[in-house]
Structures are given as structure tokens and as C-alpha cells.
């Protein structure tokens, strides 16, 4: 796989809303009122119910896994700050760009900026990641 600084990963794109949030709540036992109830979301300062940070976190993992598929590569570190929430009918895209590449002990170590954003380009959760890809 060609990996060079500046390469953008194919985005992982999903629609925000109760269909996705309820499914995630069901597997993560995350039935928190702010994610289920518009009144609770407004009480927390939003326009209504909003999506889980943990689901954006999962989307970042999906993004990296899809890029690494077939390489035997692995996610080494990942971090993000949840600065804004996804709201109903937003299109959430998990994206990443390569910021550094080095070889280390038979692996290519790739540093990336990773984030989620909505359709107007507003970043919801900026972060970074390190992945390791075997060179042999």
C-alpha cells in the first residue's frame, strides 16, 4: 500500500439519527436521555437529542480498519476530543490524513490526523491516530 504524508483516507460516512443511535444504544447499553429524548437534549443546551460521542469513536475505528483491510495492519493509538455533537439528519464523515511515516522494527508506523465532521465541514471530534503496517 502506498502511504505518504498528505494522503487522505477514503471517508467513512453515515447518517445521524435515531435509527443509528438506537442501534448503538442497544449494543452499548447507552440509553441516556440526551440521546433519546429531544426535551433532554434541549435541556443540555442542544436543539434536540444528539448522537453519542462513542458512536463517532466507533466510526473513527471503522475508517481506520477499512483503510488497513488486507494489510495485517493494526491500530496502535487513537484519541479525540468531542467538541460538538451530531444531530438528527446530519451526515457524519470520519476522515483522516497521513501526517508522518517511519519504519520501525519491520513495521511502517503511520501517524494520522483523524476527525469527524458534518456536511458543512464543521469538525465534531478532532483527534489523531497511529497505525502499524507490516512491511514484509
Amino acid at each position, binding site marked *: 500500500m502506498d502511504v505518504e504524508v498528505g494522503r487522505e483516507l477514503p471517508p467513512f460516512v*453515515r447518517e445521524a439519527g435515531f435509527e443509528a443511535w438506537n442501534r448503538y444504544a442497544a*449494543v452499548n447499553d447507552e440509553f441516556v436521555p440526551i440521546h433519546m429524548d429531544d426535551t433532554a437534549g434541549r435541556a443540555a443546551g442542544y436543539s434536540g437529542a444528539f448522537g453519542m460521542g462513542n458512536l463517532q469513536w466507533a466510526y473513527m475505528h471503522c475508517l481506520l480498519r477499512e483503510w488497513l483491510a488486507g494489510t495485517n495492519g493494526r491500530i496502535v493509538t487513537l484519541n479525540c476530543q468531542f467538541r460538538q455533537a451530531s444531530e438528527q439528519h446530519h451526515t457524519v464523515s470520519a476522515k483522516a490524513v497521513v501526517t508522518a511515516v517511519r519504519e520501525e522494527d519491520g513495521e511502517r508506523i503511520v501517524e494520522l490526523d483523524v476527525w469527524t465532521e458534518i456536511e458543512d465541514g464543521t469538525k465534531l471530534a478532532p483527534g489523531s491516530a497511529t497505525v502499524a503496517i507490516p512491511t514484509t
Partner: protein
Amino acid sequence: MPDTWITDEMRAAIGGQHSDRTSMPISVSDIRKWAQAVYYPEAPPREYWDEEFAATTSSSGGIVAPEEFNPFAWMTAAGPPSRESLGQGASTTERRLGVAPPATSNMLNGGISVEYTGVRMRPGDVIRSVTSLVDYSERPGRLGLMLFTTTEDRWTNQDGELIKIQRAVLIRY
């Protein structure tokens, strides 16, 4: 707006271990459902639901859970959560440390950082999670004084192998 949410009692609790959980054995079905939810509405990759495919095509030699999979959802080996513990939500950390929680009204997930060791979670694994309170900090925000609580969670499997170290920041206001 209060001057501070952080009491002397809370400050004294920093560094304390507030949770030691053991999961139920992970099932293939747990992994399938997780993958279906996080990849929805697209089908999840075959390696998460087809055991034969995963055994013959993946480098893991079988189904492994997605890295972010949570084996502690709904019930741990200790059984279902007590009625009293339901709804504690934001104050769980302080209550488990025997500390009076701050009188905040709302909570948000502030951020997560994780280091994965390369040890993956597989069907049949029993995962142990030990969580500690790392720090409190606070600063003013548009919704009032925001309290930031950082915790660290270390996950190991039944063989004592470290799976990940994860830090989380909970924002309360």
C-alpha cells in the same frame, strides 16, 4: 455559577481505583451485533459474522471483536446492575469512591484516548477492567463552570494479557 465543583473530599480521592469489573464471556453473537450497529446501515465486514470466513481468510485465525467493542454492556459477571445503581450516571465515579458527587445537572463525553497492545478480544474471552480516577479540572464554558473528570481504564483478558489502556474525560456542568 459555583466557584468550584471540586471539593476537598473529591481532590483526596484522585488516584483511587473506583471500578474492577469482569465481563461475561464474549460471544460471537455479541460481536456480530456490535458490528451491525456500528456499520449500520451497511452490512458489517464478513470477518465479524462468518466464523468460517474469518478462520480461513483473516490473519487473526478467526473472529475477533472490533477494537472499540464493549464487553461490559448490560451485565458483567457480577450480574445485572442493582436498581439503586441505575440512573446514577454522571456521579458513578464519586459514589464508588465513597465521595459526595458534585451537584452538576448535565454530563457530556469530553474525549477518549487509547493505546492498543495488539492483543484482540475473541469469542470466549473474559475481560477484566480496572478503572481509576486520574484527575479533576475545571474551566468556565458557555453553559457554566465545566468540571472535567479524567479516568483510566486498563483491560486484560483471562490470561492476564493487557488489551488496552484507555483514558476518558467526562464533562459535567
